[in-house]
């Protein structure tokens, strides 16, 4: 049994990377491994936007990540700087911006700093980027 850090830097609709990361995470858990966390960076943060609306017959990746995280208590950590650049705003950021209603990053996604990535890497055996 090993501990993995998953790093997602690809945007969910620009490549298959974010889906591959989901499948890898799911499989690692099924096979008895642990996930220290999933860290979303660069355009990978786009998946955290709760306003994403897919057509009914298309792949909706957002709810898949949410279910996986809730079921297995996996931290979904979103880099706050990368997210804010791309209009992904947590409730706390919204309050600071004096627009408390305007946020699109909700739990189980968490808005964090790069320090969280470092903690995640320190406690895992292997990292893999998608």
């Amino acid at each position: 049994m090993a501990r993995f850090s998953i790093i997602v830097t690809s945007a969910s609709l620009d490549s298959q990377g974010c889906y591959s990361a989901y499948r890898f995470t799911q499989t690692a858990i099924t096979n008895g491994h642990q996930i220290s966390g999933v860290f979303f960076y660069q355009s990978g943060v786009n998946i955290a936007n709760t306003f994403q609306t897919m057509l009914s017959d298309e792949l909706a990746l957002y709810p898949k990540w949410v279910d996986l995280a809730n079921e297995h208590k996996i931290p979904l950590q979103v880099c706050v700087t990368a997210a804010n650049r791309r209009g992904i705003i947590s409730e706390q950021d919204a309050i600071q911006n004096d627009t408390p209603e305007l946020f699109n990053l909700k739990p189980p996604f968490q808005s964090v700093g790069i320090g969280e990535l470092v903690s995640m890497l320190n406690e895992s055996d292997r990292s893999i980027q998608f």
Partner: protein
Amino acid sequence: MKSLAIINQQGPLHSNAGQESVDLVLAAASFGQDVSVFFIDDGVFQLLKMQKPDVLEHKHFAKSFGAFEFYDVENIYVCQRSLTLRNIESNQLNVACQILSDTELNAKLANAHNIITLS
């Protein structure tokens, strides 16, 4: 302490990758990671002293390379072959760095605990 290799593969104005690489290097180093920075392929264009991104109203993030040493990031590795292919001489570079052959560069990568590519 774990080592983190960060690989830059794109030119400075290709995307926001250069800025987000600098953010990652400085933050990871300040949280105690042993960070090394690699410039390969078009990533070596980030090292050109002559670049003037302000002409396009872009932030000159490459100026931050000079701050790496204050964060104890002293391992800055550049691919010799990528420089040669792009007609770049070492005196055109904006930061003190080690220019490595493929064999040397691959050996450095093989030693890193974790590797993140920015593209």
